[in-house]
């Protein structure tokens, strides 16, 4: 009786073993040979800026990024023959990546005469496989300095060297949900100088929402919105909004957008956008960003 059972078991084992060995084709065998690795998500966004503000992306070590950001808008009932648009604000920017995770950049915008600099550090990268992370997190610290003193006396008060500075701290949190869709939220803290004669807060809390949806391999639709929890009281301000298209052309990244934000420095456009988003002059701003990437360090192939 016992012998019969072992006999049957042996028979079953031999049948299974035979079939399993035979059924395995060569490619299936190779699939089992792959070592387990951690695969980090690449290109959650293709550019280091979504449109208005920074994305979680930084360039790899040794990359230099030259950027030219423009905003064009019209002045209502303005008798002029100016080329393209009545007014333009241009930011000239330069960035260098010291490591794959750390980037430093600075720039100057000519309309509002603001110089700005920032440091960006990636602390967490979305990944799958051996080590899996659900999100990517990047820290951003920015500083800006206004050259134009008393552009708005109500807002800043008496000229001093210290009240021309503003500081922005952001935590950029993003996830690439699918090859096409990436979303980002940006809790922000802004400290800026304020006039002692008004009730404007010195510290602002804001949260930004951004996203991209790829419409082809090279182009995507992007949008951003900033909500300010405690806005400036002495002048009426609006939340910044942007809708645009990002286009990747080899080493060149082009961004086209419609927005109500006129300035480029984070603290300024988040807290001091004085017009709402609509298609009337001078509220509609057309934005055009061009970014060119140069690699100073190249990998050697064996």
């Amino acid at each position, binding site marked *: 009786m016992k012998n019969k059972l072992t006999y049957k078991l*042996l028979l079953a084992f031999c049948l299974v073993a035979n079939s399993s*060995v035979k059924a395995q084709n060569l*490619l299936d065998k*190779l699939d089992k040979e792959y070592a387990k690795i951690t*695969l980090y998500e690449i290109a959650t966004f293709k550019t280091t800026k979504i449109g208005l503000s920074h994305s979680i992306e930084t360039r790899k070590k040794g990359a230099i990024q030259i950027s030219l950001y423009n905003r064009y808008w019209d002045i209502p009932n303005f008798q002029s023959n100016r080329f393209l648009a009545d007014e333009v604000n241009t930011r000239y920017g330069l960035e260098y990546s010291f490591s794959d995770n750390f980037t430093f950049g600075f720039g100057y915008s000519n309309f509002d005469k603001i110089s700005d600099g920032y440091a960006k550090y990636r602390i967490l990268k979305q990944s799958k496989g051996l080590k899996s992370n659900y999100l990517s997190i990047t820290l951003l610290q920015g500083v800006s300095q206004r050259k134009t003193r008393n552009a708005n006396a109500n807002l800043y008060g008496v000229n001093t060297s210290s009240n021309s500075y503003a500081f922005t701290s952001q935590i950029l949190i993003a996830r690439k949900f699918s*090859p096409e869709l990436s979303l980002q939220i940006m809790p922000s803290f802004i400290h800026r100088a304020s006039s002692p004669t008004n009730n404007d807060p010195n510290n602002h809390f804001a949260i930004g929402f951004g996203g991209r949806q790829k419409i082809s391999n090279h182009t995507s639709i992007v949008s951003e919105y900033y909500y300010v929890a405690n806005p400036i009281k002495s002048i009426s301000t609006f939340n910044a909004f942007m809708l645009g298209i990002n286009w990747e052309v*080899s080493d060149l990244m082009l961004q086209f957008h419609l927005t109500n934000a006129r300035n480029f420095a984070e603290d300024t456009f988040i807290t001091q956008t004085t017009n709402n988003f609509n298609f009337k002059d001078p509220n509609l701003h057309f934005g055009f960003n061009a970014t060119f990437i140069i*690699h100073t360090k190249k990998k050697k*192939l*064996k």
Partner: protein
Amino acid sequence: MNKILPLFLLLTFLTNKETNKNQFIARQGQVSFFSYASVENIEAQNNQVLSILDIKNKKIAVSMLMRAFVFKKDLMYEHFNESYIESDIYPKATFEGDILDFDTSLSNQTKIIRGTLTIHGKSKNIDIKTKIEKKAKTFILSGEYNVLVKDFDIKIPPILTSNIAKIINIKFRFQYQPYEE
């Protein structure tokens, strides 16, 4: 009969195990590709290509991860995976084929491998001329092959046609060792 049947099955099972002696594996196979274009040359290399060689059935299979290709410029790596090969959707490229007139006794031979190449989710039947060397009971396979970008449904925008060659040259070299499961 009751005693012979399991013995027979056990024997066939053992002989099946035996076939693994006819199989060889390469875990660090090298595949590189070149695109010669007027704007810039693009070169990439993958040193972690897997391949298995079955000398009894004269069959070969190759499998590689697209994300394992290394480029000179980081931006090339990102664009290759994101904009062209779409490695999120098609993470692997594979080849499976038969070595025609393979003679395991020769130490040096050049043979045609006929099989199916799958890149970017598209398969194509191809013939590859391959040099087969036999050294100390293992094999080294090497050769090169030209693929047309359009055969694999990889879209290049008209503005970038001068950046990427229409024909991509692929070089490969696999050094095999006996396969153990």
